């Protein structure tokens, strides 16, 4: 197998390269400028795409590289832009696609993939001859290899898209996907003001505050970049503390790969307890201060 790996996020390129190391030959393509050390994750060739990075131009360029380099697989990090490029390339080259995969195994010239389906309610394992895959961020923990990539600069063709302006996200925004510890609140928190009451816990564990879909989208008690779930961020911290979160499957799909899960909920039958390592049944406003003082001891 020979794979071409692409993402507009170079950390995801490093993760995908790590996940297929030793199983497939690989080259990678990134949008200029290159991240320091990205040439150390096992890609034989590293294509640096320069010029205006419109998705149409990226797709045309990668389609050409893919066809000329006789690759078997195109692996794109599943980001907004990654999915767009994968869609374009799969149609331009008429290649079958498999999306949002969380696991990839090569078996007798076929590939076996896993992905969540029906809104995260099921895990679908399939064998196929798909050749374009979008890969969920975090498929592996990126680690460096011995070899260095050969850097090849590629000028992108003209794009029909003009980039007018970059708008940075609001101040105070966070990237909870990278957080090591998350304290997440659900509808049970009751109000925006009540979030203040759990902040001492977040401080005690050096965690970021996150929330479920109702909290971030429906009530907007927290900004959208803090939403955990299928339609929000997929997080994988060392510790995930769920406060007043019932545990709808769409939420679980966003935090399933957390290492340790603690849940506090007043409803003993809340599904979150099925997905927790440790749980306490009771009023979170009573329990959280007690927990904070116990942690400080």
């Amino acid at each position, binding site marked *: 197998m020979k794979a071409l790996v692409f993402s*507009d996020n170079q950390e995801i390129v490093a993760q995908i390269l790590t996940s297929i190391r030793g199983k497939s030959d690989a080259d990678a393509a990134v949008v200029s400028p290159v991240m320091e050390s990205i040439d150390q994750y096992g890609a034989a060739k590293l294509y640096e795409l320069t010029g205006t990075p419109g998705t*149409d131009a990226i*797709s045309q360029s990668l389609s050409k590289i893919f066809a000329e380099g006789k690759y078997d697989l195109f692996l794109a990090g599943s*980001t*907004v*832009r990654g*999915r*767009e490029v*994968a*869609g*374009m*390339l*799969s*149609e331009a080259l008429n290649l*079958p696609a498999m*999306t949002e995969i969380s696991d990839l195994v090569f078996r007798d010239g076929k590939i076996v993939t896993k992905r969540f*389906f*029906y*809104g995260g*309610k*099921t*895990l*679908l*394992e*399939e*064998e*196929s001859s*798909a050749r374009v895959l979008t890969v969920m961020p975090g498929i592996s923990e990126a680690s460096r290899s011995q070899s260095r990539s050969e850097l090849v600069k590629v000028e992108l063709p003209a794009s*029909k*898209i*003009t*980039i*007018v*302006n970059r*708008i940075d*996200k609001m101040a105070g925004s966070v990237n909870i996907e990278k957080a*090591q510890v998350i304290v997440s609140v659900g509808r049970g928190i009751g109000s925006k003001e009540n979030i203040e009451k759990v902040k001492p816990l977040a401080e005690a564990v*050096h965690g970021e505050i996150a929330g479920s879909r109702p909290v971030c*989208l429906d009530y907007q008690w927290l900004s959208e970049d803090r939403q955990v779930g*299928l*339609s929000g961020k997929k997080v994988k911290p*060392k*510790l995930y*503390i769920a406060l007043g979160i019932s545990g709808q499957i769409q939420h679980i799909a966003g935090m399933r790969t957390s290492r340790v899960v*603690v849940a506090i909920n007043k409803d003993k039958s809340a599904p979150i*307890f*099925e997905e*927790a*390592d*440790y*749980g*306490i*049944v*009771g009023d979170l406003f*009573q*329990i959280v201060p*007690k*927990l904070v003082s116990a*942690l400080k*001891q």
Partner: protein
Amino acid sequence: MPYNVIVLVKQIPDIDQMKTDPGTGEPILQNLPLRVENLSKNAIEAAVKLKEKHGGKVSAIIFGTDRSSAAMKESYAMGVDEGFLLTGYDGNHPEVTAKVLAEKIKTIPHDLVILGNQSADSYTGLLAGKISALTGEPLLGNAVRIEMDGKTAKVTSALEEYNLEIKSDTPAIISVAQEINEPRLPPVLQIMAAGRKPINTQPAGPKEKFTSVVISNRAPKSDRKRIVFEDVDKGVSEVSKAIKEAIR
């Protein structure tokens, strides 16, 4: 200037109501009601808003089945002017859907094609890119804002780390994110009028489709410890130890 907008509407099984078999973990799909995918509603809302502001016409295309007329009526009630229902949908095959839709798009004069950026059942997210490739029209993706100025479409595209303002000439494809708007709830009179409006129905030709061999499709197993305390003080004492261990 007025704009002719095509909106792509997807109908999906109501996955919020879907259950998995407690024994086998497999999905129970029998008798599951269908609904208009949420992001399709955002797409319809965006298209109707453009019509209200600039004038023009909104045409909807659904690639569905005989059961999809309800989804088209809902689209009409929200403000869609004409609807094309292509029957022959046979499961989630984005390459088939893209070709069927692109073929129909090419027969309808338009300035914009608007669709949701992903759908909640499969989260494939490839359709916008595929349709862009098939029509040769540029994709302005994951829009949270659309502004029209003559023959130029400008969108604010929400990326993971930052937002990007991008623009292109029309005709263009715009995929929308859920943050773009709050889809309207149509008033009863409009719902009643929508029920009487004709739907242009035609079969879509069978296309070569890509299939995989399903090894399993079950509710994921969780191997959590599930140590749950109902005694708060004991719970606090034990859980605080576990937390300290976890973040050490």
